[in-house]
């Protein structure tokens, strides 16, 4: 809506000003309400241990401390390894998913199979979005167990590629379908096959779409919990799985848990704030055009 809010400002000047003021106040209120849990988390990650679980609650710590961050990065803790696992899983998942996903999307946009099989295959990719991941997690766990692949980065990456591929395929498919066919025609007349057309004509034009799909893929993989926690309990553990283990029989380790949650949250917050346009496009396109 490029114009609605401005064009509607005809007549009733005082009422209009009051209305605008109310809207501004409401937006500030909701933004504030939404941000509180974030602020509380960050404050808790630098709060001294004796100020947790007090009554009344300590909101602003009496002094700021980095001891929880030091504690989780203590050499005896394997946090660095889990961070490394998370980074490897997320980046490899993103690269593979983008490569095979965009290739498949290009194929689906140009391929002509009989009996509208192309549409059917595209629909199968879409279907993945609509069923419980627990249904595939159980057999996937058994498959990895039988293949002696439990607790490997390979198993987590393969699962994450399977999880994110449908999003990449659909985002790129919508994009490729909107590209004018004329772009490829001259290349086709020159005798370029699909591979050269894809890599030399189409891919250079897809940077924004690839960025959108890449951010969404990285986000899904970085945050994923269910599959990672069931197939990678130790050596290949990722950060989100580690966070849940701060809840112990003896109680919850609030400080370290807040610190590690902050570490997980911050990269995605930066994506959210500085790549909003791409992120929103990624999150909505799947829904709006699907």
């Amino acid at each position, binding site marked *: *809506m*490029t114009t*609605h809010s401005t*064009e*509607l400002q005809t007549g009733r000047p005082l009422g209009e000003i009051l209305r605008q003021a109310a809207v501004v106040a409401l*937006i500030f209120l909701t933004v504030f309400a*939404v*941000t*509180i*849990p974030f602020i*509380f*988390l960050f404050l808790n990650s630098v709060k001294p241990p004796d100020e*947790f679980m*007090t009554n009344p*609650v300590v*909101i602003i710590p009496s002094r700021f401390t980095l001891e929880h961050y030091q504690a989780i990065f203590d050499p005896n803790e394997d946090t660095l390894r889990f961070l490394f696992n998370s980074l490897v899983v997320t980046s490899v998942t993103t690269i593979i998913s983008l490569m*095979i996903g965009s*290739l*498949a999307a*290009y*194929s*689906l946009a140009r*391929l*002509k199979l009989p009996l509208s099989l192309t549409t059917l295959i595209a629909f199968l*990719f879409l279907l*993945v979005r609509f*069923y*419980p991941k*627990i*249904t*595939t*997690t*159980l*057999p*996937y766990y*058994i498959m990895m167990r*039988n293949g002696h692949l439990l607790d490997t980065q390979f198993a987590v990456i*393969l699962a994450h*590629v*399977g999880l994110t591929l449908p999003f990449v*395929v659909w985002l790129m498919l919508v994009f490729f379908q909107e590209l004018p066919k004329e772009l490829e025609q001259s290349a086709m007349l*020159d*005798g370029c*096959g*699909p591979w050269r057309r894809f890599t030399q004509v189409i891919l250079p034009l897809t940077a924004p779409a690839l960025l959108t799909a890449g951010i969404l893929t990285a986000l899904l993989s970085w*945050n994923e*919990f*269910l599959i990672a926690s069931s197939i990678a309990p130790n050596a290949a553990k990722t950060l989100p799985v580690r*966070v849940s283990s701060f809840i112990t029989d003896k109680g919850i380790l609030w400080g370290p*848990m807040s610190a590690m*949650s902050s570490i*997980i*949250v911050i990269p995605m*917050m930066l994506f959210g*704030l500085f790549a*909003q346009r791409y992120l*929103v496009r990624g999150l*909505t396109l799947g*829904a709006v055009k*699907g």
Partner: protein
Amino acid sequence: MIKTQTIPSEEPTVTRWQAFRAQLGEQGMLFLFLVPALVVLIVTQGYPLLFSAYFSLFDWTLSRSPVPGAFIGLDNYTRAFADPVFIQAVVTTLIFSLSATLFEMLLGFFLAYITVGETMWRQVSRAILILPMVIAPVAVGTMWRMMLSGRAGLINAALAAVGISGPDWLGDPNTALLSLIIIDIWQWSPFVMIIYVAAITSLPVDPFRAARVDGASRWMIFRHITLPMLIPITLLVLMFRLIDTMLTLDIVYTTTFGGPGFRTHTLTFWIYQQGLRYFNISYAAASSWILLVTCVLIAVGFLVLRQRLTRWQG
């Protein structure tokens, strides 16, 4: 090098790869592009789905035997429907899903309506408002455990300030499910918001201009032009939220862990417990198929409805 492919007679030394490509042709090559993604889809989704449908028909406890036991037909399915805990999980899921979806739709639409627009500060507001949905569910769990803690939570501190003594939100049987609903609303209303923002932004301008020329009030424009044009997208968002709330698991896992008692055992959490904790693998698979079929039916129902509606409107 490329020309040799179309006119092979010009260049007699064709490499094996070029010959292969010429043989394959345009469509064959394109199909080849699809193969890696199809392989991943089959290995990570197709085969596991068929495998779980298969062993849901057997008696199989993974901790006792590495292979499925006796074939028992649909016994796991009938057993689920006779299991009071399963039925309780269905009810819990429905309450959670329907109430969270309802409030997310209303709140998300409202947020979209007040934040739509291209001014700098509206864009910044939206960027902040979508943060809850981009962060890891486990982090959301940590945040809300601290917000909702009975003794030292921020919510109860705020309530105490106005003289109300708040409950132990996540631990109290009366408020545990309500807490989960609040968390889901906080996290996913922004999703409804950004979709409505995109939808409102792409509405055609002409009907609004015409209505204003005719002197229609703001309410009349909203009621008779904006709302009807947003019905198709509303059906779509509704479908996404209904299904996604029915599949919520991470938040339950990281906040209440199904408790107190079975109070917040949603279907997905119950299936998770049966499958990956007690290793009643075939029973869990059967239950997950009941949920899967329900979700796919909801999706198909909404998509058909939407298609009928667009045909009728167009």
